[in-house]
């Protein structure tokens, strides 16, 4: 219950700050902390930048209890600290899966809602909050409200994607999806460049799951060469839980910051792209290896060494076509930044949330070490993204300016008004919200 002084960072390990971390185990404990003044709400700390950081941080990761599950409808009610992994462990063996899963199973449900995360099926299923029926929210005055699209629409659409700035998400009611198997039928296509990749994404839009791994180091005619991974739930094969949940291995030390230097990354990418000889391959793979391949290494974020890394993820509108992607990849491949693989996927329609990231178009996510050169590259990418009417993902961000934020998220004022109406102003803030000029 009592606060601890700790060094905190997001998943990117940059920036790192000293924070007072309080784990409130009871509702009264949470109320008491919120009563003290500005508080930052943190789940598993899997957002990359500074959106879970602040000087006074409420740790919600231990609120992992599950409240109910309706075996007929597939509606699960869980506390906000339960993770996607918890959902997989408990419900996958019974034939129910989360409708949307991000690239890691270690995020909390509360964090997934606050970030309104998406998965490889965004074009078909929308984002995480689109499968949330209601949630409980503790407001700035300590009152707990049950929020649904019907009961409190403005609070629902401000909180989903609202980065924890409207209140403390306490529990979430989720609609799970029934599946006949825990395995995924995976088809992978090896594609020579960006135009072929975008064309293949469009012609295969009927696949439920779709995302391309792009080699960011390839230039010239190979610019944007990729492996496009498509997936569909297998129609039989049972629900062996061991297939889905494996214990990750951990990197036991922090390697030197230069481990992922440009030549190493280039060689890895060439090998990765070249590993698949055939142009097309089909296989049955486990749920985990399809959705959460990086989870096999518990702390892969250490690979970037002490200085940490940042992930830059943007979306460009569909009407702009593949051209902004081509220009972005050219910028990335020419910058003195060892950017390994990037992930490209097509988004479906945006939802009605005020700060949710997805909009119809193409999204590209790329990791880079936190260096001055990388920050400069991000600035150039910002301009490109804004020029074509795109936006940058808040859950990955650690560095965008208030001006960029406002251009990306034009409904920010509405967001601020709703926060003010519900007593969130000055109560819930993070390093990110302060940096972005939110009150």
């Amino acid at each position, binding site marked *: *219950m009592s606060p*601890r002084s700790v060094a905190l960072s997001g998943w990117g390990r940059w920036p790192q700050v000293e924070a007072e971390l309080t*784990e409130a185990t009871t509702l009264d404990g949470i109320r008491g902390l919120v009563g003290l003044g500005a508080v930052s709400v943190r789940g598993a700390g899997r957002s990359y930048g500074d959106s879970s950081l602040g000087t006074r941080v409420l740790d919600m990761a*231990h609120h992992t*209890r*599950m409240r109910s599950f309706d*075996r007929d409808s597939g509606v699960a009610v869980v506390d906000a600290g339960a993770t996607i992994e918890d959902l997989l462990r408990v419900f996958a063996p019974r034939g129910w899966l989360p409708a949307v899963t991000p690239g890691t199973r270690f995020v909390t449900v509360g964090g997934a809602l606050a970030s309104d995360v998406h998965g490889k099926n965004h074009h078909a299923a929308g984002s995480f909050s689109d499968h949330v029926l209601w949630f409980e929210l503790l407001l700035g005055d300590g009152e707990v409200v049950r929020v649904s699209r019907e009961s409190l629409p403005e609070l629902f659409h401000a909180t989903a994607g609202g980065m924890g700035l409207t209140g403390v998400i306490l529990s979430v009611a989720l609609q799970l999806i029934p599946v006949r198997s825990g395995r995924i039928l995976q088809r992978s296509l090896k594609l020579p460049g960006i135009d072929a990749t975008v064309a293949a994404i469009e012609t295969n839009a009927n696949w439920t799951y779709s995302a391309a791994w792009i080699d960011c180091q390839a230039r010239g005619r190979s610019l944007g060469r990729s492996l496009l991974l498509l997936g569909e739930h297998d129609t039989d094969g049972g629900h062996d839980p061991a297939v889905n949940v494996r214990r990750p291995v951990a990197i036991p030390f922090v390697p030197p910051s230069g481990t992922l230097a440009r030549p190493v990354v280039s060689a890895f990418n060439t090998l990765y792209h070249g590993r698949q000889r055939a142009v097309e391959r089909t296989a049955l793979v486990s749920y985990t290896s399809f959705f959460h391949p990086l989870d096999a290494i518990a702390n892969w974020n250490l690979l970037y060494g002490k200085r940490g890394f940042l992930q830059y993820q943007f979306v460009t509108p569909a009407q702009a076509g593949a051209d902004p992607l081509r220009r972005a990849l050219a910028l990335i491949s020419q910058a003195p930044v060892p950017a390994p693989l990037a992930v490209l996927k097509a988004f479906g329609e945006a939802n009605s949330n005020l700060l949710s990231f997805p909009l119809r178009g193409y999204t590209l996510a790329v990791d880079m070490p936190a260096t001055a050169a990388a920050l400069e590259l991000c600035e150039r990418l910002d301009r490109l993204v804004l020029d074509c009417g795109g936006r940058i993902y808040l859950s990955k961000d650690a560095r965008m300016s208030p001006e960029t934020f406002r251009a990306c998220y034009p409904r920010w004022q509405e967001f601020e008004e709703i926060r003010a109406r519900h007593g969130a102003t000055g109560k819930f803030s993070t390093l990110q919200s302060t940096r972005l000029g939110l009150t």
Partner: protein
Amino acid sequence: MRRWCTEEPTHFVLVGRREDTLRAISEDLVTRGCDGTEASIHVGAFRDSEEVAATVAGALEHGRPDIALVAFGSLPEQAVVSATASALTEALEVNGVWPALCAQLLFNALREEGAGRIVLLGSVAGDRGRRSNYAYGAAKSLLATFAAGLAHAAVGTGVSVSLVKPGPTDTPMTRGAGTRGRLAAPDDVARTIVAGVARKQPVIYAPPRWRVIMAIIRALPGPLFDRLDI
């Protein structure tokens, strides 16, 4: 507890002081458990021997348990209990006297049935008194001796008694108590406990490496032990 219910349908009877907490735990067990998992709750107090007796009797009205887990206590700050008589008394009672009384009452009931397992939650802190938490440690060592005696008394009755000695584990009790070093993952500790109880092991260290660590700490000669800041 979650570990037990994923394997086979289990009926839990949860006993504790706070109804809201018990209810939340029972919902969690039923939601996570396999089909057929049930949980009932019994609210009771543990502040004196009458209250403990009433609580145990009330819990037993839900049916005779196959496995009875006695796991309550609180980790006091040694500085506080050293300075306050009432806090010291409470620390010794909550962590030692009342759990021992629970175990005895459960044993008396289970002996009539001629079957059942009693599991007491001790601690590695009970293995040797240390200046940093000897009040808690002494209460836990009371439980250790009590469990050993109860196990001896249980020979031939069909009842078994196990004492669990967890090392520092990542739980609400240890977090915020300024615990140093690495805390064990609750899931690993739970796995060890379930396996040990299934084998009717009399003393279960969890994680098992603490058996070795504590053997060394117990064997340290006094002058050397005195120099340790533990």
